């Protein structure tokens, strides 16, 4: 069953220098109980995507087209007050990067969880406190720490508290934006395990936004690779990461050293991500792509299924049957 359907979503920032096309014609479907990873470089629009879904854009960010359906509700057309009360956090919650600044330093951790419950449900103060304590326990934090302040928590505990907060109202979909960035590797592993366990137990659907392929590989069922505001490759996570077809995805996987393979120099993709004020014509990756030719600069490739079922890719150089040109980055 499709839980969240995003179709042709476009969100632009209006700046003094023009429109920044941060989310440009993006479509995907999140099935109930599944996890979708969104990966890409900094500035590719992946965090803007999360903020768009929760309608938390800064004042210069506008949704200029497309639709987002959660169950049978069209989210982008809802009244703000109805959306705040009925959707935000209640049905669509977000895990922010908690190690940094997602918790208010002058309020107790527990009260910040309880207030989410009180904002959406007819619960008494005592009930909310009770539930917040249970949530803390669920993520492995002693409920006695309800009344402690964020500075008394370690980075990993803060992150787990932020996860507990996201689960406060039993949401249908959780969007996790870089939930493990800024944590060291050991703590990162614990947090990822906590996320996976909770997801299994509660049957949550999740969108995990990350720049880290290994995090997505570990936690997600599907993956969407974003480049310059667009999805360039989409499919089941093993399929996409084992048989990457788009030159950009190939570049990303090559940039990751394999701990079991022979030592090889890390290959990086030359160049920098494009300026989204005036993205390149045709395929947005063409200025950095070793395969690019005149057609790539002129004609935008369509994201379509090629070869394996469910594996969609937007590249002129991938044939209908899914044959891939081998890409070598200098």
């Amino acid at each position: 069953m499709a839980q969240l359907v995003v179709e042709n979503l476009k969100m632009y920032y209006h700046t003094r220098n023009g429109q920044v096309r941060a989310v440009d014609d993006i479509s995907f479907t999140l099935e109930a109980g599944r996890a979708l990873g969104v990966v890409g470089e900094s500035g590719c629009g992946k965090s803007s995507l999360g903020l768009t879904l929760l309608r938390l854009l800064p004042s210069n960010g506008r949704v200029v087209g497309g639709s987002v359906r959660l169950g049978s509700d069209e989210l982008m057309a809802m009244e703000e007050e109805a959306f705040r009360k009925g959707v935000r956090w209640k049905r669509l919650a977000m895990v922010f990067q908690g190690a940094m600044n997602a918790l208010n330093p002058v309020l107790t951790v527990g009260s910040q969880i309880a207030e989410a419950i009180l904002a959406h449900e007819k619960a008494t103060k005592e009930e909310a406190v009770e539930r917040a304590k249970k949530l803390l326990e669920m993520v492995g934090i002693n409920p006695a720490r309800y009344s402690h302040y964020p500075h008394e928590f370690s980075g990993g505990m803060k992150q787990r508290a932020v996860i507990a907060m996201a689960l406060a109202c039993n949401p249908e979909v959780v969007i996790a934006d870089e939930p493990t960035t800024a944590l060291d590797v050991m703590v990162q592993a614990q947090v990822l395990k906590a996320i996976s366990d909770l997801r299994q137990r509660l049957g949550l659907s999740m969108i995990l936004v990350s720049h880290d392929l290994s995090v997505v590989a570990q936690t997600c069922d599907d993956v969407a690779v974003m480049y310059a505001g667009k999805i360039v490759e989409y499919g089941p996570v093993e399929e996409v990461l084992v048989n990457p077809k788009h030159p950009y995805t190939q570049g990303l996987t090559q940039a990751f050293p394999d701990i079991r393979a022979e030592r090889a120099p890390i290959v990086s993709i030359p160049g920098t991500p494009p300026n989204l004020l005036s993205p390149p014509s045709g395929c947005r990756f063409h200025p950095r792509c070793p395969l690019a030719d005149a057609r790539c600069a002129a004609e935008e490739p369509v994201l379509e299924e090629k070869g394996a079922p469910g594996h969609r890719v937007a590249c002129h150089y991938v044939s209908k049957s899914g044959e891939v040109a081998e890409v070598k980055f200098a």
Partner: protein
Amino acid sequence: MTGAYFWRRVGYALLTLFVIMTLNFVIFRVMPGDPVSLILSPDFTPEVRQLLRERYGLDKPLWTQYLLYLKSMITFDFGRSFTTRQPVLGELLARLPNTLMLLGTSFVINVVVGVVLGIAMATRQGSRLETGVTGVSLFLNAMPSFFIGLLLLLTFGYFWPIFPIRGTMSVPPPTGFWPTVIDRIYHLVLPVTAVSLSGYGSWYLYTRNNVVGALGQDYVLTARAKGLTKREVLYRHAFRSVLPPIVTLIFLSLPGLITGAVITESIFSLYGIGRYLIDATLQQDYPVVQASFFVIALAVLICNLLADLVYGLVDPRIRLR
């Protein structure tokens, strides 16, 4: 907050007070001129002069004078004024209510107007209203209060005489409780307006800038994502997190009010501590000046101490240290 924290702060404050008292003693000893020559006509005979020196303790060695001075300061025995021959403490206390009324009222107005306006404008950052309010506030903040005071006197006391131009009450004073209260307020309108117009701006700017900064924090985004109302986000999260520095600033700026008193009371001819200090300085009335310095220093120290202690109450990160 632990007891150790409290006592350490109190200890620092006492140490500072001691240093200030010592400086206060030294300043008046190194200033040119013998106190005796100031209160006497030079025609007195050397015998009388010597008698007076003994009477004021000036014949004793310096360190004895110092100890006597410390003792009298601590016991609030400030001696008698050279000019009025009245006990200094009594004169200070007689003027205190007027000063408190003027400064207390305008200080409360300053803080409340500044903070409330600052929060309101922080959410409208960049709008035409906000630009206007910020512009006017910056302008008024840059104007000295004496200038605003003089303009007010000229406009509402002279050209359009609806408010009194001097004093804290009518002469003769009205009888009865309510007539007295109304008369007092009537006399306070112009001075309070002058102090408030020139003083609210810094509170406004400070609050506005801090709340704008807090609204850009991740935890405010989290609060919005949680589906809290705008009000809850603004007050419970954004404003709550900037409350500690504002509370500190309130206590730290209390002593600065005394400078305000000096100027405003002079302009509006109010019978208060500020004008007392000015007059005493001009007449070289050392006991009064010395006592005023001591009282001001004491007020500054107490306010700083309170700021430290209250900060510990409103900011959880400060506790236990």
